[in-house]
């Protein structure tokens, strides 16, 4: 288990040169970064799975199923992720479900993001006008061909950029796992900060760590958005 290294201030001498706290704790910070990436990837998989399932539930012509889908989306989207995270970590044990902090954070993040994914997929499907598939059929295409060449390219083009933005939000939201002591990037930063008081240095560096991921993701989403508009 990696530990944070206290670098100074305890003795009351001159503060160590800028950068010492980060350099001395680099492995500890990188292990946090790894946990952040793992958490984000696992939660993304859960969110996509939930999104597909609930997007289907929200479009079937069976009223109770549709209600379940709507209830999930509206309740989860309109309540804070922090409350949901506490619910999973502190609440579930009282009904006999005891989850490790990482699992609780993964579950909360996946369920929370899943509600947004559901809406992204659903609006992607709704974005394709009915006339499009009718036109494809009247041009002599089969149902499969119509889906393959006309409907799906447009639906996917309409869904991919929002999903990209949701992935960025999800990546940033992994930081909430620090509130239940998951040893991810921000949590490790807090520990180092409390031992070294090198506040600007530590949080500045951790900010850069997040930017290294979120800025390229944002650029990629922008690029996809521009390239996919030709399908719409």
């Amino acid at each position, binding site marked *: 288990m990696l530990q944070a290294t206290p670098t100074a201030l305890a003795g009351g001498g001159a503060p160590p040169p800028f950068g010492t706290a980060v350099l001395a704790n680099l492995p500890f910070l990188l292990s946090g970064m790894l946990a952040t990436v793992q958490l984000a990837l696992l939660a993304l998989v859960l969110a996509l799975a939930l999104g597909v399932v609930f997007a289907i539930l929200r479009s079937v012509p069976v009223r109770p199923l549709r209600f379940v889908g709507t209830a999930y989306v509206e309740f989860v989207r309109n*309540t804070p992720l922090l409350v949901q995270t506490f619910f999973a970590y*502190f609440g579930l044990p009282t009904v006999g479900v005891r989850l490790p902090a990482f699992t609780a954070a993964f579950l909360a993040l996946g369920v929370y993001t899943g509600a947004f994914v559901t809406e992204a997929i659903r609006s992607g499907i709704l974005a394709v*006008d009915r006339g499009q598939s009718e036109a494809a059929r009247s041009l002599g295409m089969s149902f499969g061909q119509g889906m393959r060449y006309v409907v799906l390219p447009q639906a996917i083009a309409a869904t991919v950029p929002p999903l990209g933005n949701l992935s*960025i939000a999800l990546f940033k939201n*992994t930081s909430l796992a620090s509130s239940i002591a998951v040893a991810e990037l921000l949590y490790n930063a807090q520990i180092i900060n409390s031992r070294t008081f090198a506040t600007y240095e530590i949080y500045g560096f951790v*900010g850069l760590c*997040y930017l290294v991921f979120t800025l390229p993701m944002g650029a990629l989403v922008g690029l996809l958005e521009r390239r996919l508009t030709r399908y719409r």
Partner: protein
Amino acid sequence: MQAFFEPRRWAPFLEPAIWQFIWTGLQITLSMAAIAIIGSLALGLFLALCRMSRLPFLRYPAVVFVETVRALPVLLLIFFIFFGAARAGLGLSPFGAGTLALTLYTGAINAEIMRAGITSIGRGQWEAARSLGLDYRQTLSYIVFPQAARRVVPPQVSQIITLIKDTSLAAVIGVGELTRRGQLIYQSEVNPLQSLFVCACIYFLINYSLSLVSRRWEVDAALGVPPSGRRVQPVGPLPGGPSAA
């Protein structure tokens, strides 16, 4: 499931004192949100105008600020401002630090929402206004802003919903807002599921009502009903294609 409905875990919510306690927390949540909404709308408009300016010394700082702050986790900003201010010897309260961080973050996002709204107003509007003899400021305030403002309302409302949810993060630095008070309740009453569920329901009521208002606005805007105007029966399909509503 049975444990969730256990009466003794719900019993605290029969006491008025608990609701008094929650109400105080809700007031703090709402005041943080209100201050941050006003601050972030002003900041967002300022940043959007700077970013669209032809002057490089206005444009570049705005671009760097917006793109950086938007790409960082809110919780990191809260920690940075709270602990950073303490480190610098500024006596910034948890409430002040939380509200400031939320204002800066939401301001950066609002800047992009407003910029998108303003740039969505066609060039023709600008050209027509200028050829009628209006100057840059007149064009902006009489032609572009009124149209952009209406398009900006739905995304701006969903950003406000996000902001209200994000105020819960101030609980982590010890602001006694709704979520923090929910935690305090369950720590003494040992009913985390029930207390957090009650908190979630309060957030839900506020945010869901906001989203309903926004949805109605979107339908009205698509039908061309002026704000606060009389609703008319739609004739045929909505103009402007399928909306996100």
